[in-house]
């Protein structure tokens, strides 16, 4: 394949952060947000996900949705790695207020302080909130 087929070359890579602040299942935001994240993976951008407030509940291990007849989309978070989305940031205070620790989460994440989270957000070109 010739070099000029590589139309991505020279394209701008922007830093995109998806901020997840809603619990799964109670509203459609978490699932819709995840869909957008997966779509974004197709554009070869620098994507990160932040989990703040009830958003941390999206990552809780052991979700079992047979009883409510909804799709359990939590395994998808483990597949993000395969789309080169590996920057998952979790707000420590949100975890602690909800009785959770890093061990309760189904993916490897970076747990950080509010100040560190704020720094991460401030570095982004685009922040999209769900």
């Amino acid at each position, binding site marked *: 394949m010739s070099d000029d087929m590589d139309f991505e070359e020279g394209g701008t890579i922007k830093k995109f952060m998806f901020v997840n602040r809603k619990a799964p299942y109670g509203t459609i935001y978490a699932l819709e947000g995840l869909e957008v994240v997966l779509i974004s993976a197709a554009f070869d951008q620098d994507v990160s996900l932040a989990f703040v*407030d009830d958003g941390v509940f999206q990552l809780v291990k052991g979700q*079992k949705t*047979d009883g409510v007849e909804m799709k359990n989309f939590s395994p998808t978070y483990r597949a993000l790695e395969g789309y080169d989305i590996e920057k998952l940031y979790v707000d420590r205070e949100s975890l602690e207020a*909800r*009785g959770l620790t890093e061990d309760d989460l189904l993916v490897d994440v970076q747990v950080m302080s509010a100040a560190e989270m704020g720094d991460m957000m401030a570095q982004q070109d685009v922040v999209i909130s769900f």
Partner: protein
Amino acid sequence: MLHIVNKSPFDTGSLASVLRVAKKDGGAVLLIEDGVYAAVKNSATEASLKAAGMPVYVLQPDADARGLQSRLMEGVNMVDYGGFVDLVAGHDNVQSWL
């Protein structure tokens, strides 16, 4: 009166309002949907539920969906959909705190 809460206590003040307003005598609280998050062990809301002064019920299928099977506090009562119906039938009236 049976008080049904379906919102996360970290997101809205529904549960706090129930615990503030509800008449404890003859009262009960049923946590469904995102309301079940209130009953997570070691959470900021555990103490307020312990002090509810009323029986607290949690809808099991909603807790399971959210991965909370082994993460709930002591002292709450798990119910299935049949138990939900029994609770509604067993109280004089019901309020859903939307």
